[in-house]
């Protein structure tokens, strides 16, 4: 991961390494918990059921045509 800190500062290096380690550990454990909990086969079936021609199909709730639409409202600050 990229780190942004003042070069030559041992304290900053330790803090940055510690932060990176904590962020990656949290990500790994969070993903593991989700992997255990998520029913991906049901999710796949739900997606396939939304496609044209599928039995009981319906449109997805919010189907963007492209990921490159105008800036999201969550990132205005």
């Amino acid at each position: 991961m990229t780190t942004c800190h003042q070069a030559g500062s041992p304290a900053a290096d330790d803090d940055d390494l510690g932060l990176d380690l904590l962020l990656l550990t949290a990500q790994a454990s969070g993903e593991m918990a989700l992997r255990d909990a998520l029913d991906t086969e049901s999710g796949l079936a739900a997606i396939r059921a939304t496609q044209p021609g599928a039995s009981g199909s319906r449109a997805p709730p919010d189907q963007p045509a492209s990921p490159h639409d105008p800036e999201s409202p969550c990132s205005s600050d």
Partner: protein
Amino acid sequence: MGATLTNAGRHEAEVARVCSAGGSATPGITCLPGKAVDPGLDFAACYRQHLPGLVWFVMSLGASADEAQDAAQSAFAAAFPVWDTIRHPQAWLRRVAERVHCRSRSSREFPVEITSDRPWPPLVSSSVELRDEAAEVLAALAALPARQRQIMAWHVDGFSPAEIARELNMEQAAVRQNLAKARKNLKRLLGFTSERPL
């Protein structure tokens, strides 16, 4: 998404090829966590492999587990019919999931009509029990300003400042500046320092 590969696209394809083969010492290529996607991975395999990571990404943006599942599921549903044309699935899915989440949150804050049910059936077959460090990090991310939180979420998923700038249509300098502020604030929030917030 077009079929023409730009120079950046060729580079990313090479990165994906090298990294999916298990990493490399190839000059100019750095394999980052969560970044590489096997270009030959079909939709179902990619969904099974990367859904948890995408849900975590949306949770890092401040969504609840339920909201994040809905946004991630909607992103994969949008990708399904155009899967063969998507060159960079990891970035594409994150952009769409983020936008779905933001729209959903906006509609809750400014409701114009009452919807009776969730857009997707629940995907969780058992409760999501986060360990302490995961919950602590999510709480700290939620306390960041939205732009810092957004950039940190992309950063933790292995995207470089240049890639983040491209995906979010920002200047690289602004990405680096927000990333530095986010790191400083996170260190304070997570107890690494006692620095004042930015």
